[in-house]
């Protein structure tokens, strides 16, 4: 069964450092998303991406965050200068279609720990 893969599974970084989380969405999917879940809290939408541009972003997704699809297969989330409160599980997701019924497939997540 096709799946969304994410690397690294766990990253520990110092506050202020840059972090790049990588995702390989399912190959025929067109819509890409990043969500995050702070420990014990709900899964929160960060950003959606389609046709090589951001289609929507949340308040969380400020100037410190960026996304890129550099080579047609990878979909990356970059945090330029990490803060303690960025510690969370980050989930990449992809979907074949934007319409209802287009199931959102999630990766297993990348746990980010900022010290």
């Amino acid at each position, binding site marked *: 069964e096709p799946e969304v893969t994410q690397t690294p599974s766990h990253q520990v970084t110092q506050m202020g450092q840059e972090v790049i989380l990588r995702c390989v969405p399912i190959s025929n999917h067109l819509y890409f998303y990043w969500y995050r879940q702070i420990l014990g809290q709900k899964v929160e939408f960060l950003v*959606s991406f389609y046709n090589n541009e951001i289609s*929507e972003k*949340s308040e969380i997704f400020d100037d410190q965050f960026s996304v890129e699809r550099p080579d047609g297969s990878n979909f990356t989330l970059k945090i330029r200068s990490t803060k303690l409160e960025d510690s969370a599980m980050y989930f990449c997701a992809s979907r074949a279609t*934007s319409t*209802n*019924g287009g*199931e*959102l497939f*999630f990766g*297993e997540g990348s746990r980010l720990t900022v010290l």
Partner: protein
Amino acid sequence: DQQVKQNSPSLSVQEGRISILNCDYTNSMFDYFLWYKKYPAEGPTFLISISSIKDKNEDGRFTVFLNKSAKHLSLHIVPSQPGDSAVYFCAASATANTGFQKLVFGTGTRLLVSP
């Protein structure tokens, strides 16, 4: 602003009995609702969905009921199995205008099915 609420953080059920997980929402623009299941260290996995034009959708042991007037939906699992033990997230999206369907998640309900 918690638009999707799951007021029960946990639920314990015996194997073979019915599990009922509840979810309330506040945004009347939501028109598509989903349930995701999440095991530890894994991403959310899609279970079942329902459009606002329906009040019930069934898939095997899983049935989702939607009461639009009460802004309430529930997931019924019958019969419950130990393998169903996981965290269940309710999610909703408003498809009008955007088309990109970001999901708004509830905080999750941890279901424990004991043998």
